[in-house]
């Protein structure tokens, strides 16, 4: 199959859709995102624990918000990005898109689990229960199963390109769950509170609490980008192992580090 081309403004955008071109680019970006994530995390934790005041109603229990809300945002956003790349892979048949979707799934599942875990630990002291079959909680649990289903389906199919296509269909169908999670607190009047942060309304939380939460959200973004770029590089190595450039790359590594770390 010939390489597709999408030329806009004299740039062939499919150039970066080649795993060979993307591999070094991703490698160069990882340290920047990792360090940015570490800095945002340190600043967010400092403000979250040493600057933000005690909440009048919830006491110190509210400090779970600095993990819970960023994790919940990432769980939904990573799914949308994963479904987007899966869809691009289906339409344009670009190999890298499917690899990107596969690389995002474990990190998305991690943040989904953390949103549920921290939610349970926050629900117990504030609601008096670890878990209720509330619309928000239930749809977030379905999101976790969608991530697991995506990974299990891909793992069950030997041919990577077929695994990409099957996973893409699952990811796209499952994307309907994202607006359900997001709007569940408006559509069903259940236990979970409404959105903490809205672009349309004035903030209802103290400015320092909001700052800490947004810094932690930025940290989660940076970490997710670094982790998925790192994983996609491993996937490229796994799938392109027969290619000359991969052999060159492996040889260049072993020249500099004899132990082949």
């Amino acid at each position: 199959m010939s390489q597709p081309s999408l030329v806009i403004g004299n740039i062939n955008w499919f150039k970066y859709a080649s795993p060979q071109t993307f591999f070094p680019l991703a490698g160069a970006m990882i340290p920047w995102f990792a360090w940015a994530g570490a800095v945002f995390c340190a600043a967010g934790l400092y403000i979250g624990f040493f600057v933000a005041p005690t909440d009048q109603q919830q006491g110190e229990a509210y400090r779970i918000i600095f993990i819970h809300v960023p994790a919940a945002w990432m769980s939904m956003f990573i799914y949308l990005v994963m479904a987007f790349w899966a869809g691009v892979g289906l339409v344009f048949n670009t190999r890298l898109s499917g690899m990107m979707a596969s690389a995002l799934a474990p990190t998305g599942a991690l943040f989904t689990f953390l949103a549920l875990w921290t939610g349970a630990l926050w629900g117990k002291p504030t609601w008096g229960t670890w878990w209720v079959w509330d619309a928000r909680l239930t749809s977030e649990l379905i999101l976790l199963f969608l991530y697991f289903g995506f990974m299990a389906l891909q793992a069950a199919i030997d041919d990577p390109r077929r695994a990409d296509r099957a996973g893409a269909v699952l990811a796209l169908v499952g994307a309907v769950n994202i607006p359900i999670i997001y709007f569940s607190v408006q559509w069903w009047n259940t236990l979970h509170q409404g959105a903490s942060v809205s672009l349309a309304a004035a903030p209802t939380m103290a400015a320092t609490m909001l700052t800490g939460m947004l810094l932690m959200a930025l940290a989660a973004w940076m970490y997710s980008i670094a982790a998925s770029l790192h994983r996609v590089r491993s996937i490229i190595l796994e799938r392109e192992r027969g290619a000359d450039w991969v052999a060159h790359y492996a040889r260049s590594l072993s020249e500099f580090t004899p132990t082949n770390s």
Partner: protein
Amino acid sequence: MSWSSGSDFFAMGGYALYVWGSYAVTAGLILLEVVMLILRRRNALASLPEGRGEAGPR
């Protein structure tokens, strides 16, 4: 700042189990993912064919 001492900080106003339970599991799982990322890369590199001649399947 809300804390007068270190033990005050760790007590988290009586919510230590919930707050530290959240942060500890988050830190632990992220650390686990980083270790798994490093291992996956190491395995991917280790399973590369040495030369094109003795390349395995694919």
